[in-house]
């Protein structure tokens, strides 16, 4: 079976932010970019958009810098988790993340991040063009290969 990962295909992303709204709604019952755990970076004039979210690193820099060991990688599902009871809001993880995937909750003042929604990510469900997919860990490479080989037949798939 193997572990699943959240794979991004930036070519399919249209910048609609359905994923962002799905996330904040699922986690905080409101629609708010600030309260989501993933974001869309848009370069409007060039028509470019891409999701930015936690990559659930194998050696997470956030885990390394946390002074109270509130962050750990769950060995069962690979999710990098923040223990909200331990978090002191020092923001070291916020600053160290290479993707900017950690945010500081405006009200609680502690670090929050993507937890892959207990194995059923809401953002993936919301993404109709399938720019976000929750796939078997061996698949991401094969998605790219599938796209490349299809190009030889001059077919652009969804």
């Amino acid at each position, binding site marked *: 079976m193997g572990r699943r990962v959240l794979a991004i295909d930036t070519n399919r992303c249209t910048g609609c932010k359905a994923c962002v*709204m799905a996330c904040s709604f699922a986690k905080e019952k409101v629609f708010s*970019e600030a309260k989501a755990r993933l974001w869309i970076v848009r370069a409007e004039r060039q028509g470019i*958009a891409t999701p930015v979210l936690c990559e659930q690193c194998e050696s997470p820099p956030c885990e390394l810098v946390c002074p109270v060991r509130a962050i750990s990688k769950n060995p069962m599902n690979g999710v990098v988790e923040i223990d909200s009871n331990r978090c002191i809001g020092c923001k070291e993880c916020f600053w160290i993340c290479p993707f900017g995937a950690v945010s500081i909750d405006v009200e609680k003042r502690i670090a929050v991040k993507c937890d892959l929604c207990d194995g059923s990510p809401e953002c993936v469900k919301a993404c109709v063009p399938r720019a976000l997919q929750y796939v078997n860990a061996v698949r991401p490479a094969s998605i790219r290969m599938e796209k490349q080989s299809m190009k030889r037949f001059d077919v652009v798939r969804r």
Partner: protein
Amino acid sequence: MDLTRQKIHTKPLTDDLRGEFLGSRGVNAKLIWDLMRPDTDCFGPDNVLIFGAGTLTGTNAPCSGRTTVTCKGAETNLYLKGSMGGHWGAELKFAGYDHLVFLGVSQKPVCLWIDNERVEIRDATNLWGKNVEETDKVLKEELGDEDIKIACIGPAGENLVRFAMIMSCVHHAAGRGGAGAVMGSKRLKAIAVRGEGDIRVKEPERFGLVVGAVREALAADNTAKSMYVYGTSGGLAFTNSLGRLPCYNFRLGQLENVYPITGQCLVEQRYLKRRIGCFGCTISCHRYSMVESGPYSGTGCGGPEYESFASLGADTGVIDTQAVIKANQLCNDFGLDTISTGSVIAWAMECFEKGVIAKTDTRGLELNFGSAEALLTMVPLIARRADSIGNLLAEGVKRAAEKLGKDSRKWAICNSKGLEQSMVETRCSKGYALAFAVNPRGPDHLHACPWAERGSSTEAIALVEKLTGNRKCASPYLTEYRPEIVRWHEDCYAVTDSLGFCMIASLTSYSINPKNMAKMFSFATGHPMDDSEIMLAGRRILTLEKCFNVREGADRKLDDLPWRLMNEPAPTGPGKGLVNSKEELDKMLDKYYLLHGWDQRSGTPTRETLGMLGLKDVADELRKLGKLPAH
């Protein structure tokens, strides 16, 4: 915002307004009815320009990111409701605002800066004269944030070109009718918004369930899928095969080789670089295309959409992908509606062909059909009102034909209201013919797009069967039952616009329907409504819009179609010989007014009908002005 006195007032949106007029387009209509007097100059301080984000804009309701722009239109001097996508409306909602109402005229160029609750009128002298992209870039730099959302005009709006548009987020236009010129007349260059707040719905669980079901329906829908892959222009080839594509100023309905101006060409020839979605849209029909070789290498722009390809390409005869992308980019950046621009240039080309416009009028330019040079030279001239020809065409095809005379009104593709017709061959699309004739802003598809009459999907046929009792009525060649079909689409479209939904989801895909719109509205606002109640609200809204026109002196005589389509039969294709004759139109109009409960002679809503819709005060005002039909 009182731009004359540079003063800002804020008011809460009341529950009553929500309940009666839903939001966005509906509330805009009520506001503009209350705030305006008849017979005002569309470029004067008494014209009111209103922006309204959808009730559901900013939520995860699929395809609910649209904003309505309402004013007295520059082309028609009648009601203008325009609509723009992008992300601007959502940002406005996150800032805590639903509507922006602009009164008066500013002495100097200004822009409005909405930074969450804080609203400020800023000097925009340094932005005046800049193209749309440049305005977006400079304003974002000035305000120090690439994430703000900007709605702005280009030079065309500043120069009061009658079909100048307002651009949301660089690529999404409130295109038709000259809202950009009205904005320019107020010297309002741009509205920049930063919204970082929360949006809540009253019943999150139930809202979420409906949203999930609607999302699934849209994801499975073939029309929606096709829109994502090939865009709105993916349907051009099919339309052409049915002889319904206007070409050479509506003289032909079909091209031999339509491929260069299709969505398929954009994808297959690698002009398409990105698919773009408005806020919360699961379809994402918008395009970003680039030309990377040839004389226009380096050109990139949002689109081209179906209408842009049809107008700038088929209608002018310029069947050239690269040239049309270039023309589209020019229109977008100058802030010109592509539909009117193509139509007015096509008219000028026919004038040139007939010798009514000569080379002496065009500084030696050969204004020939099919000439990319002519097309690309004319667009900037129009935007700048440069040379007598640019200035003439900038007035729109109706005024230009009136000025030029020599029977040129016979090939001016606008109706008596004055808006250029959008690129639909109504001679062989009778439902569209009726919808175009009755549209308060003029003959286009963005009032009651009766797509179902084509019977090109199972959902479409099912809807026609529901409305007429007979699935065989799903044929655009029939005139029977067109009033019933148009009326349903009108009501549904009013609800669609007011909630912030995109009509592609509700009137082309039909995945978003009155039932699920009513549910989403109820669970979001806490104001319970079922499908018949929400459709009644839609009816109330469009009836109020009609009353605005009645108040301006419009009557049945303005519910017509362009001279060519009423008098010259379609020359080729499956619709050959068909015409939108007055007799045929009158028959459909009689039934349409009857269904609405409007006076058949004048087309005016009766006191009884207005009372039934809760618009008694509107009836009273019309009676005082002597505009209510005697009963």
